[in-house]
């Protein structure tokens, strides 16, 4: 009898979640997250430490060659940074002339990943910051390389992040070069699929995909990835486009949660 009642409770929860997705995380789920995340974090810290020792002090094969390559890359990147600095200064001058306001001042909070891929199918991670740090559901999460996903559940000191490669993830996007519009949908290990891009739109392999800022969750212009392949069927309205996410979703240690646009808040 008890088991049947529990099954019914679970079914009601499931039906309610499907047809009325809530923005709030229930107390039981919060408690479960709070109890498991510290242990996961501890094990991850130990494993990362062991991995660091292995990579820094033991596994030193090809270190000399890697060092030479890095020195070359460093020189090249320094030149590029200088070029970009010049371009940025020019951009600032032009923007001032046009009277545009700064749009990219976001307040962020840094968080550490305490739990990686928890299920075979769902692409989520746990981070060690929650509502106590100002994090709310639907806040964007990024790495230094680009957007990682968005917060879907928040507990007091732990949050769950839905990665952009999950099937449930849909992000409104723009092709940076041609400004073609589409929806970036997660496709698991295959990366992401850019949907609803019209056949006539100009998209080529290597194009950068950024957030459009239209859906109200992600600010405009955040890096999402690059176009991997483009296929135009003989019939049909849209192109088949695959995108490789710029953030490495399998090896994430630290992330930034975008709390909001400071200027807009002011």
């Amino acid at each position, binding site marked *: 009898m008890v088991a049947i009642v*529990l099954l019914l409770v679970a079914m009601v929860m499931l039906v309610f979640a499907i047809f009325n997705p809530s923005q709030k995380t229930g107390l039981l789920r919060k408690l479960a997250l709070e109890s498991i995340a510290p242990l996961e974090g501890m094990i991850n810290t130990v494993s990362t430490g062991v991995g660091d020792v292995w990579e820094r002090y033991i596994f030193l094969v090809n270190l000399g060659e890697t060092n030479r390559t890095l020195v070359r890359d460093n020189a090249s990147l320094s030149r590029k940074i200088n070029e970009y600095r010049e371009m940025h200064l020019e951009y600032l001058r032009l923007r001032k002339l046009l009277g545009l306001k700064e749009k990219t001042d976001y307040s962020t909070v840094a968080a550490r990943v305490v739990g990686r891929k928890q299920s075979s199918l769902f692409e989520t991670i746990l981070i060690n910051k929650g509502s106590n740090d100002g994090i709310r559901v639907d806040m964007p999460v990024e790495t230094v390389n680009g957007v990682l996903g968005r917060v879907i559940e928040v507990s007091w000191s732990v949050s769950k992040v839905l990665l952009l490669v999950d099937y449930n993830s849909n992000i409104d996007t723009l092709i940076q070069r041609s400004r073609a519009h589409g929806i970036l949908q997660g496709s698991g290990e295959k990366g992401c699929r850019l949907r609803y891009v019209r056949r006539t739109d100009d998209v080529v392999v290597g194009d950068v995909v950024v957030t459009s800022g239209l859906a109200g969750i992600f600010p405009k212009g955040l890096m999402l990835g690059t176009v991997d392949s483009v296929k135009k069927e003989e019939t049909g309205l849209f192109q088949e486009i695959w995108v490789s996410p710029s953030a490495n979703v399998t090896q994430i240690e630290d992330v930034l949660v975008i709390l909001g646009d400071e200027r807009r808040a002011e």
Partner: protein
Amino acid sequence: MYFLSLWLFSFLTLIVQVTLFDLLFHGTVVLELTMILVIYAGFKLDVTRGGILTFMIGLLYDAIAGIIPGLFIVIYMLIFFVAQGISDKVRVENSVLIMGFTCMSTFLEGVMIFFIYEVLLDIHLSKLLFVQVFVPQAVVLSILAPMLFSLFHRIEVIAGVGESK
């Protein structure tokens, strides 16, 4: 006390599942030990104790890994009831039966997830995903299941709760 140890045990199983396997397989394979624990509960425990254990495992796994609240609880509860039904009719110590049922349960889980995504949520999952995720999962879990069954049984005996069925 009994339910506290069940809770603790579910908790530890889940910890092993989501952390140690991540370290070993780097996120490529997630072995659902919790599924085998649910089958064990269905085969070996009575309806009330097994049902509560299954609910706890589903709730924890849902909170940690799930995206749709209640999904894993429903899947695990259904698997538990099927296991209960079978355990009344056949000898559940048979390793082949345990392996076969684990394999079937993994596929059942896959079918339910696909059904919910395709029919209720209108999200189209790649058909290949079934082959890439659930087939290897079913094979590995089936092989591990008899060993884990004896491990769970030992823990049950050590914890002093004995067999309840």
